[in-house]
């Protein structure tokens, strides 16, 4: 792919990678500024006219791109992928070429940074699937904007994707915090979610038709290894508290119930929880509430930038408890800086310093080469692997003589074999993710417990332990 001329952002409307975004050229700036100026001017004109003729839609769709591969033979990248993942014989024999799927991501709003990073991972997966299959499977992804979890936008994305008759909708935000669920079932769209997974397990989003979490159950699966480690290494710390973002009562209740049970299992005391606003910046009251609980350890199920603010304000408030969380990426690392010193973080994290298998090494090296040395993050990795999981299902459907435009066929093949290659885990050619066909969330996926560098960078982290779902295969590093 590196020898291809890359289309510009303005030409594709495709979510770009952080690495690409950081390179803001003068031409790009002027181009975007011109569009911005025009739009602002148009705002005044519309208002002066007294009415707007714009169509009402809570979800915006951008056109996808059609990946290009060299016309003859398998590329070097494709050969390496075939060496690692095996040869997709059925796709090579009966592949559809261009194949339309959809993705709903946070392209605007407070979480747009995640839409960008997930979109970049998905786009990279699409490119490499095309190379892996020698152009016989080129996903044409239509992106829908969930506006960072706005329910109406999520629902509109689900409806519009369904009406476009795509069999696959790559999701985020735990199936749009449930807003996508009815549309996935109604339109029979296979809906993997590598962003938020299926949420807490057990929880309100598990086992829903057509909807599958393609990352660990969040945050419940992540907590097991953290609590196991902390109770092992800090046995004198007995008072545990929970801070979680306000999502919805069924979600928050599920997280609390699981956490209370977990604390009991490891013989520590649950002193209470604090529900904090989602996506805020001022957490002084939340931190004061935590101080009122006088905990030794606080588990944060927050995600995004919230953790950075919470970490900083905990320091400003003079908090001395041990902090543990389940998210860590570039923006958080930059914002949190030294406030994240001493934090324990555990989840399905991409450790770029010590990849566990051949595919992970290949992915990291290729990504860095194609993104000016920028390292991929775990959102990039999750969506990248999900593109391959969808391709794997297509390979199986074609092998069984099925119809790849029928979303039900994806579910049928997943029920038959719910194991997919992944960049997490190892050693060997690949790690794996195994989807539980009852909960629709992973029953096996390797996670990493680590201390972050706490210097504004996302790597190198200090690995402490690896563990699987329910803290299985727990190993100190």
């Amino acid at each position: 792919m590196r020898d291809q001329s890359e289309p510009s952002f303005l030409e594709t409307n495709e979510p770009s990678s952080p690495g690409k975004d950081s390179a803001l050229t003068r031409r790009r700036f002027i181009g975007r500024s011109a569009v911005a100026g025009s739009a602002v001017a148009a705002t005044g004109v519309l208002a002066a006219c007294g009415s707007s003729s714009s169509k009402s839609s809570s979800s915006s769709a951008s056109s996808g791109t059609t990946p290009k591969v060299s016309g003859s033979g398998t590329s070097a990248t494709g050969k390496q992928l075939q060496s690692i993942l095996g040869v997709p014989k059925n796709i090579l024999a009966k592949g559809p070429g261009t194949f339309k799927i959809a993705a709903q991501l946070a392209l605007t709003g407070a979480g747009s940074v995640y839409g960008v990073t997930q979109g970049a991972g998905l786009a990279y997966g699409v490119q490499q699937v095309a190379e892996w299959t020698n152009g016989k499977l080129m996903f044409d992804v239509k992106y829908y904007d969930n506006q960072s979890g706005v329910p109406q936008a999520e629902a509109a994305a689900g409806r519009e994707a369904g009406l476009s008759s795509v069999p696959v909708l790559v999701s985020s935000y735990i199936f749009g915090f449930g807003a996508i669920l009815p549309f996935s079932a109604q339109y029979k769209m296979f809906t993997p979610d590598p962003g938020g997974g299926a949420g807490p397990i057990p929880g309100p989003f598990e086992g829903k038709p057509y909807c599958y979490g393609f990352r660990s159950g969040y945050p419940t699966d992540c907590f097991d290894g953290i609590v196991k480690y902390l109770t092992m290494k800090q046995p004198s710390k007995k008072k545990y508290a929970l801070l979680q973002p306000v999502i919805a009562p069924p979600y928050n209740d599920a997280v609390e119930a699981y956490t209370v049970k977990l604390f009991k299992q490891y013989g520590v005391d649950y002193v209470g929880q604090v529900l904090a606003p989602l996506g805020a910046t001022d957490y002084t009251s939340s931190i004061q509430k935590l101080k009122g609980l006088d905990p030794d350890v606080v588990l944060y199920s927050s995600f995004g930038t919230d953790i950075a603010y919470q970490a900083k304000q905990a320091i400003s408030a003079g908090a001395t408890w041990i902090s543990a969380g389940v998210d860590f990426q570039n923006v958080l690392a930059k914002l949190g800086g030294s406030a994240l010193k001493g934090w324990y973080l555990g989840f399905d994290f991409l450790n770029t310093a010590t990849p566990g298998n051949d595919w992970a090494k290949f992915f990291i090296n290729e990504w860095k080469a194609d993104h000016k040395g920028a390292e991929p993050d775990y959102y990039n990795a999750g969506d990248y692997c999900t593109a391959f999981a969808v391709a794997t299902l297509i390979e199986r459907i074609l092998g069984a003589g099925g119809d790849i435009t029928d979303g039900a066929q994806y579910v049928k093949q997943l029920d038959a074999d719910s194991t997919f290659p992944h960049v997490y885990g190892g050693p060997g050619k690949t790690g794996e993710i195994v989807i539980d066909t009852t909960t629709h969330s992973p029953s096996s996926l390797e996670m990493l417990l680590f201390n972050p560098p706490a210097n504004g960078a996302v790597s190198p982290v200090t690995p402490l332990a690896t563990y699987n779902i329910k803290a299985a295969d727990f190993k100190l590093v």
Partner: protein
Amino acid sequence: MIALASVSGFVQYVIDGLINGSGYGLIGLSFGLIVAVTGRFHFAWATSYAIAGFFSAYIASTTGIPVVPSIIIGLIAGAVFNILAEVFVYRPVAAKAGTQALLAIFVASFGLTIAVPNLVAWIVGGGPAGGENLNWISTAPHSIGGVTFTTLDVVYVVVTWACGIGTWVLLRYSSLGRRIRAVQVNPGMSEAVGINSGNIYIAVFVLSALLGGVAAILTTMRYTGTANMGLTPVFYAFVVAFAAGLGRSPIRIMVVGTAIGIVEGASAQWLNVQWQQVVVFAILLIYLIFKAARVWRPSLFQFTIPGRSGVTTTTEPG
């Protein structure tokens, strides 16, 4: 989860509320100034606020320009946005919309509020600018009697109140302030005596941007700056401005803002944190009900001061 906090815990909530409330006062003053003097419902105040807060940090972090010049550039950028909005959007809209100007301007302003932050995010990226880039004031904790605060918190209160008092002095004692008050009271008469109300409008938009910009930059220092960081504050500003009374003294607006902050902060003692914002809007609702009750029965809430026959006090703002 309702946790009963200790007395020091309650005092901590109140102090946190006082700190935040000082900021509410300043943004209420900033927002209310425009509405009171120009009659423009400048909802895009949120954008001006965000431009100042976001770009100060963004410039400091991406260009290598020192913090103070970055802050000045951010403040100027917010002011320029306000001027452009007034000159190129509001005035043409008002001229064409006639009697529907208030609504038309609100729609235009609302459009700006949605469009500009998203376009800014598109141009320079959607991530936070990182308030730590502006931090040369310590955020290390100090503790007195179990109450914790930072040096930045103290600076925040001092600076916001200094701005509020400074605005009061400006409006009360300066030539510009007298002209602003004249236009506020009677634009037509002001024009008749030679005051260019258009220029006064521009001055008010600039003053508002500077006041809001100071609050935004301090907020960026405390938390971070984002392209849409003005969306929540604009609602607070709205509540404070209307609860204090449009066109009232800057000192009064600062006091009301601080009081709202204290009530909001203290409410955390009994309520979940996510309900704190509801408290603020409940205050506005109660205020509006009170106002409506006064219209229905003017004698309500009028009390005679003992020993001073004929003198009454009311709880009416003013």
